[in-house]
């Protein structure tokens, strides 16, 4: 029983920092992609020839490349997590990104966050806490 608790604790110590990293990288990547695309602007028309200059500008946009790098790292972190943690453990935890975005927009940008949104964030945190108390890995491997 002590070994089981020790194993759970070891996995949690490894899992929680990576989940926090993914919560940072995902929204950051999306924001940078959005900024990069806004900087480039909309095409003049829907014709393919009008998309080509956009592709050229996209290729030169540092924000876009940084966004892609963040999202690739986000995907790598998830791949690493999935090597030892259950999908049903990792997936709900990633919902903390909603909370992170709201808290950051309140603290950094001074945006108004409605009571309904705070309630949603509180529920997400509670749900993640409840899931986080379970063992991160309930399988010993699946058939290839």
């Amino acid at each position, binding site marked *: 029983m002590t070994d089981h608790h020790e194993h759970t604790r070891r996995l949690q110590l490894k899992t929680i920092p990576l989940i926090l990293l993914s919560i940072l990288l995902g929204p950051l990547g999306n924001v940078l992609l959005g900024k990069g695309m806004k900087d480039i602007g909309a095409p003049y028309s829907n014709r393919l020839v009008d998309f080509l200059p956009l592709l050229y500008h996209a290729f030169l946009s540092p924000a876009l490349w940084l966004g892609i790098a963040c999202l690739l790292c986000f995907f790598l972190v998830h791949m690493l997590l999935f090597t030892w943690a259950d999908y049903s453990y990792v997936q709900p935890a990633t919902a903390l990104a909603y909370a992170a975005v709201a808290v950051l927009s309140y603290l950094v940008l001074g945006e108004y966050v409605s009571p*309904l949104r705070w309630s*949603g964030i509180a529920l997400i945190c509670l*749900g993640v806490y409840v899931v986080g108390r379970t063992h991160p890995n309930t399988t010993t491997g699946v058939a290839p």
Partner: protein
Amino acid sequence: MLEALFFFFIIVAGTGGELCVSRAMKNIGEVHDFRPRALLRFVLQALRLPWMWAGVTMMALGFFSLLAILSFRAVSFVVPFSALSYAAGAFGAKLFLHERINGDRWLGIVIVTLGVTLVWLSRNQ
């Protein structure tokens, strides 16, 4: 009909893709070495697994379905459906990955799903 098909792909292909990636990663086994060279070896190993490619393909299908539906439906209508992926993911993990989801974890997943729905309902406030 087309709209229903896109919603199906967003939930089923998006979540199914993540489940396939998760299955591929379980086949690799727990990673202990986080140095850059070891991580590169890990990525190359992952890229050789069929489950990985199936997962990435399905995730891409889910993503493009989301983009397609956003072209004719409002975000506020589309995105609350993504909260369903938490429930779909839990069922998928149980059936496809044989994860043992106990009462606490089910409860947590339901609470998270409700929380995500509330956050999206509040987006115009």
